[in-house]
C-alpha cells in the first residue's frame, strides 16, 4: 500500500520535473511550468471590465492584442497589495474553449527559473477543502525553500470559465 503510493508519487514527480518560473506572492514562493509562460511584462494600465469577478482585473493591450489579466493574490483570496515597480504580469498561454488564449497573471515579483528534479517534488498537502489544492500540482523543495507549483490551466482556465458561467 505504502509502496504503491510512493511509486505513484514518484511517477507523478517525474512527470512534473522540469523548468519552472518562480515568483512570489507575499511570503510564499510559487512556480509555473516554463512551457506555458509566454513573456513577463511590467505592470501597465489595466482597463477594468464590468461584470467580472474581482480577481479579473481587466484587459491590457499586449502589442495590439487584448488579453485578460487576473490578479493571483485576489484569485487565491489573499490580501490586495498596491502595485509597485516590482509587480509583474506573467503572460501565460492556456487552452481556451476553442483556441489557445493568452492571459496575464499579476504577481508581486518574479524570482528566477528553477530546474526542479522529480525527487524534489511532493504531492500537494491536503488542506481539508479540495478547492484549495486543486490548483496545485505539487510542492517543490528547491534551494531550501518551498515552491508551490501551480496548474496554470486550472488557475487561469477555470478562472475564466467561472466568469463565463456567472
Amino acid at each position, binding site marked *: 500500500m505504502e509502496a504503491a503510493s510512493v511509486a505513484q508519487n514518484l511517477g507523478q514527480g517525474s512527470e512534473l520535473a522540469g523548468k519552472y518560473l518562480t515568483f512570489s506572492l507575499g511570503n510564499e514562493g510559487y512556480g509555473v511550468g516554463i512551457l506555458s509562460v509566454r513573456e513577463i511584462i511590467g505592470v501597465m*494600465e489595466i*482597463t*477594468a*471590465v*464590468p*461584470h*467580472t469577478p474581482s480577481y*479579473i482585473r*481587466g*484587459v*491590457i*493591450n499586449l*502589442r*495590439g*492584442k*487584448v*488579453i*485578460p489579466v487576473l490578479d493571483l493574490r485576489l484569485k487565491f483570496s489573499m490580501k490586495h497589495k498596491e502595485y509597485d515597480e516590482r509587480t509583474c504580469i506573467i503572460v501565460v498561454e492556456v487552452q*481556451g*474553449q476553442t483556441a489557445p*488564449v*493568452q*492571459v496575464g497573471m499579476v504577481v508581486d515579483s518574479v524570482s528566477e527559473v528553477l530546474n526542479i528534479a522529480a525527487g524534489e517534488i511532493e504531492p500537494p498537502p491536503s488542506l481539508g477543502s479540495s478547492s484549495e489544492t486543486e490548483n496545485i500540482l505539487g510542492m517543490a523543495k528547491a534551494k531550501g525553500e518551498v515552491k508551490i507549483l501551480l496548474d496554470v490551466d486550472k488557475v487561469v482556465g477555470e478562472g*475564466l470559465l467561472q*466568469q*463565463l458561467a456567472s
Partner: protein
Amino acid sequence: MTAGHKPLSDLLDDMALKILMIEPGDLSIVGELLDLTEKLLPGQAAADTPMVIQRMAAAFKGALEKFIMGELADSGENYDLLGQCISEMQESARKEGHPGENILEQFCDNMKKIGVSLQPSALLGVSDAPSAGMAGAKKDALDEDACAVASPQSDSARAQAPAAGGPSQEALPDFLQDTDLLAGFIEEAFEHLESIEVNVLELEQSPDDQDIINNIFRPFHTIKGVSGFLNLKTINRLAHATENLLDDVRNGKRSMDSAVIDIVLTVGDALKSMVENIKDVLQHGPANYQDTDISGFLANITQLQEGGGEAPSVEPVSAPVADSQPEVFEPEEVEPLASEEEAEPVDAPLKSAPPRAAQVAAAPRVEPPAGPAARPSADSAQKKIGASIKVDVEKLDALVNAVGELVIMQSLVRQNKLVSRIADAKLTKDFSQLTRITSELQRTAMSMRMVPIKQTFDKMIRLVRDLSKKSGKKVDLIMEGAETEIDRNMVESIYDPLVHMMRNSVDHGISPSVEREKVGKPETGTVFLRAYQKGGSMMIEIEDDGEGLNTQKIRKKAIERGLVSESDNLSDFELNNLIFLPGFSTADKITDVSGRGVGMDVVKKAVEKLRGKVDVQSQPGKGSLFTIRLPLTLAIIDGIIVRVGTERYIIPTIAIQESMRPEQANYSTVHGRGENLLVRGELVPIIRLYEIFGVESTNTDPCEAIVVVVENEGRRRALMVDELLGKEEVVIKNLGGLDVPGVAGGTILGDGRVGLILDLAGVIANKAD
C-alpha cells in the same frame, strides 16, 4: 491537387508522368492532364513561365480537348504524340524559354499529327499564338490516319502503364493511400458539384443552351476522371454514367428534359453526400466509410438513355422515371432529400397544381441595378474571373490583424506628446503620406476578405426550386445585388439564417396558387432576395408577396405565453417582431419544411452574433419583408468614444441617433426609479452607464451629464455618459476569452490603452434585468 505555383519543371514532369500512365479508354488521366496544362496557360501560369511555354501549353490543351471530346481516338499512338509534345515543352523549359527552331518545329509537327495546326513562329509570339492554336484545335483538321503515323515510344509507354499501377479494379479503402490528393479532390469536387447545381438551374431557363450543357457535363467528367484515379469506384461509376447520359444530350440523342435535370440534380446530391463521406473517412478514419448503393441511379440512367433515344424531341414528363427516383437513395446516405420526397404525397394538399410547375418558376431572374455582373448567367460569370490565387484564410486573417495593429501603432506614434510638439512641415507631410499609405493598405487588406454574396445566393435558387416543387406552389425567386461584397467570415454564418428565412417565406409566406388566385394575386408567388450596401452596412432583404404576418394572431400567442400583457399597447411593428422571440411560431400546421420548432429566434441569434440586426415588416395580405442588416466587415467598427468617469467606452455609431445635454423639463421619473427623457415627443428610458458598469462617474445628475440616444432592436434608450471624446474607426478585438454582457469586445485606443466596445443589446437587456 491545388498545386499553387509549382515550379515549371515540376509541372512538366508531372505531365510527362501522367502521359505514361494513360491507358486507352481511361480518360480520367486526360482530365488531370488538362488540369495541369491549365496551370501553364497564359494568365494562369506563374509569372516566370516563359511565354513560349504558355503558348505551347495552350496548343497542348487544344489537343487534349480533342481527346476528351472524342474527336481523336484515344489510341496509344496518339498519346505517344502527346508525350513527345510534353518532352519538347520540357526541353524548352530547360532552355529557359529559348528553345531552338527545331524543337519548336518538332512540337508543331507533333501537334499537326494530332490535328492542331500550329506554326513555330506563332509559338514565338509573332502572331496571337494561343488563339490560333485553339482555333486550329477546334477545326477537327486531320483524321486519325495522320495520328497513326509512327510512334517509336509507344511500346515503352505502354509497358510502363501497368507498372505505374493504373487504377486497380479493387474497390474501397485503398483510396486512402494518398490523402493529400484525396483532400484536394474533396475540395474540388464540392466546387464542381456546386457549379453543376447553378448551371442546371440556369438550364431550366434556356434549355437549349449548348454552353450550359457543356458546363454541366464538364464537372461530371472531371469528377469521374479524378475519382477513377483515386480509386473511388462508386463515385467514379456514378459520375461516369451521368456523364454518358449528358453526352447523349450533348450529341442531340435526347433532349434535356425534366427527367434528365432531375437525375442530374439528385446524382449531384448523392455525389455530394458521398464526397462528404469521404471527407469523414479522411478526418475520422476508415471506419466511417459508407458504401452507397448507386444501382438505382444507374438503372434510372440506363432507362433514360434507352427510352430517350426513341422520342428525343418530345418533352416527356416521364412520370414513372421521376417517381422512381426517391427509391434509389440509401436512406441513411441522402436522408434529407429522401425523406422530403417521400413526404410529398402527404403534404401536397393541392394535387391540382401541376407537379412540374415549380421548375421553370424557381429559376433566377436578376434585375440590373445591382451592377453589370449581377446576372448569374454563364457568360457574365466568366467575364468576372480574373487571375487569382488561393490563400490560406489564416494567413489572410493574420495580415488583416497586422494591418490593424499597424494603423494603431501609427496613431500612437503620431499622438506621442514629443512627436506632436514638433512643428516641422516635412514631418507633417510625411505623416500624412504615411497615413494615406496605411489606410490604403487597410482598405486593400479588408477587401481581400470580402467576397460577393453570390455564392450564398446561388444556393437559394436550388432551395426555392426544391421547396416550390415539393409544396406544389409556384414561386419565382428574384435576386438582386448578388455581387454585393461581404466579409468572408460572414458568408458561412449567414447561410443558415438565410435558408431558414427563405423556407419561411416559401412555406408560410406564399399561399398555394389556388388561394392566391382567389384573392386576385398572380398565380405565381414571388420571393425577392436582395443585397445592397447602405451606410456602413450590408443589407439583405427577403421579401415575399404572400399572406403577410397575422399580427393579431401573434399578439394572441404572445399574450398566451406571457410575453406581453393584454394591456400592453404595442405597435404592429413591435408585435410582428415578437416572432423573433424564442419558441415563437404561429404556423398552425407544422410542415416538414420549416416550423420544426426552431424558429426565428435562431435566425436572430445568428444575425446578432455577426453584430447585425434583423427585423420584419409586414402588411396583412400583401406580404412581408425581412431585413437583415450586417456590418460590412467584422473587423472594424465605426464608433463614438465616450467617457464615463475614468473609463472610456465605444458606442457603435450605427446605433446612435443623437446626443444632447437634457433639460430638467424633459426629465421625469416613475416611482422615483424608472427614469425617462422626453426626446422629440417620445419618452426614452435613461440608462446610467456608470451604474451598470459599476464605475465612478463625474456626474450623477442627468442634466449635467450628456445622454446619447441609441436605438437597438427597435428600442430606444438614452445612455448617460460624462463626455463625448470623439469618433473613431476602431479594430475590434475579442477580450481574450472574456465574454461580458454588454461588452462586444475591446479595441486599442490612440493612447495604447484598451477601450471597451458596448454591445447595446446586452446593455439594454442588462438594464431590463
